[in-house]
């Protein structure tokens, strides 16, 4: 806890306490970092990073591998005790990891309600699974699920905690293209219904463009570029604003424009 509010900016509420969810009257951001730094030995991963995530905002963070995307996400999740600087999270946090991380010896529904202090955990889990379209597999063993199903279960597990901040760590990168598209739709509908702030870490520019209100490019441990997207959802991939932004983001990522054309042709 101490490290999470290491800058002395005390959180208004205990972010880890369940029940501190619900609509907050105060406007402020759900997550706020100032001068956040993290290094592993001599290697600086996060360098004096400032970030605000507003209530209900969908933020996507892209960057080459090793730029500290996951480190930042882990810090926000409270999983990294080695960060320095100010870090303040004022809403309950839920995380969906790159791999589903389902506990193999618990049935799908029990995975969803794991650690949940609800009166009817099974019922709560079932309704969350219904929302993610996996109710039929509630009594299945996790090892029998497909990759897409497993991530649906992981999403249900995050959802059931009613998070004010949902952290998604490349959750769709291991899925095939078709499954990924349906997962994008699912995430958007869940986000619209439950209105959590979302931080999506991805390496897929198109994914960021399809989903986010704001796209951040992380480079050298800092936010190198920030772009706000106002195009209505569902978004047409060929919308002129998105095409322009795609080229801009790919340039920021250090991918040449010629390669962009090739990518588009695919």
């Amino acid at each position, binding site marked *: 806890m101490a490290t999470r509010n290491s800058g002395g900016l005390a959180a208004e509420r205990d972010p880890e306490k*369940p029940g501190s969810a619900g609509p907050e009257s105060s406007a402020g951001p759900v997550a706020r970092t100032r001068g956040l730094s993290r290094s592993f030995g001599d290697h600086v991963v996060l360098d004096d990073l400032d970030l605000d995530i507003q209530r209900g905002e969908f933020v996507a963070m892209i960057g080459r591998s090793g730029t500290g995307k996951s480190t930042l996400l882990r810090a926000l999740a409270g999983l990294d005790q080695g960060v320095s600087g100010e870090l303040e999270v004022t809403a309950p946090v839920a*995380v969906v990891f790159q791999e589903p991380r389902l506990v193999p*010896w618990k049935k799908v529904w029990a995975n969803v309600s*794991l650690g949940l202090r609800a009166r009817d955990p099974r019922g709560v889990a079932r309704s969350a699974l219904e929302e993610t379209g996996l109710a039929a597999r509630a009594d299945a*063993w996790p090892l029998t699920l497909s990759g897409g199903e497993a991530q649906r279960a992981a999403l249900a597990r995050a959802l059931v905690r009613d998070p004010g901040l949902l952290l998604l760590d490349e959750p769709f990168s291991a899925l095939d293209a078709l499954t990924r598209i349906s997962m994008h739709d699912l995430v958007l509908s869940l986000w619209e219904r439950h209105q959590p702030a979302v931080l999506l870490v991805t390496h897929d520019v198109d994914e960021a463009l399809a989903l986010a209100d704001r796209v951040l490019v992380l480079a050298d441990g800092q936010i190198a570029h920030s772009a706000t997207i106002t195009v209505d959802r569902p978004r047409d991939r060929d919308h002129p604003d998105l095409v322009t932004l795609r080229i801009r983001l790919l340039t920021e990522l250090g991918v040449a424009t010629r390669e962009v054309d090739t990518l588009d042709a695919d």
Partner: protein
Amino acid sequence: MGDAAPIQHGRGATVPVSTRTRTAREDNPPEPTSGPGGLPIAAGVTAASRTRAGRGWRHKGWLRLISPIAVLAIWQIISTTGVVSAQKLPSLTTLWSTAVHLITTDSPTYGTLQGAMAISLERVAIGFAIGGGFGLVLAVVAGLSRFGENTVDPIMQALRTLPLFGLIPVFIVWFGIGEVPKITLIALGAAIPLYLNTFAGIRGVDGKLAELGKVLGLHRSEMIRDIVLPGALPMILVGLRQSLGVAWLALVVAEQINANAGLGFIINQGETFLQQNVIFVALFVYLILGLLTDYIVRLIERRALTWRRGILEG
């Protein structure tokens, strides 16, 4: 990964050869290339078919009875035809009537077989409960913290190297010749394998799941109950089977020292009165009880690890 090196090595060798002539390439390189490349594949195939066969055995459990029955048949033939004297190897039919006699008559020399069995079972049960319980608890303590590991593990590792039966004279001096030294011996024997396997099992639990538990806000007790122990369960069950094996072994040895009841006592008496058939009957009872407890653990294993069978059958 390990077999990647020879394959690359083989390919590397082909390059200079192939640049020389076509025929040379056709003659030489495919041999070494397919050689190291083919071996791992072949090994993979046999491994796969072996597991398939293994599953078949479980479905057709009776196939496993063939060889033991054959051994018993040969035994019977050898002893009845007089190849080996009945004094050295009593026939199975003799053993059967001896067993019936031991069960039906309460002789002053042997007591009854079932009475001896009950006493032996009780000793194993108490010893195993104490030893296994200690082993499990200590493994959890050592597995969950560095402090616990540094405190508990050196002692357990030291005890592991102690020859268990070398302790008997010490135990007799310390605890006398009653039940205490016997149960202590069984408990100590049972504690070690369960400790070692549980400790290894706990340390082998996926760190990512522990991280997940943290994100989900699990309390320490929930973490142990929902993540750590179930994750270590396959290893715990291996330890359980080994522990039971050692417990039976320790019982046999313990019961032959100054026991006045139990299966070991019957063996001692049989030795004193030169009744080989009685000794064999008691040994058979040990064997059956050992197999029975092992079977029970296997049943537990099947029920507790259904989530794993899911992948095999799915």
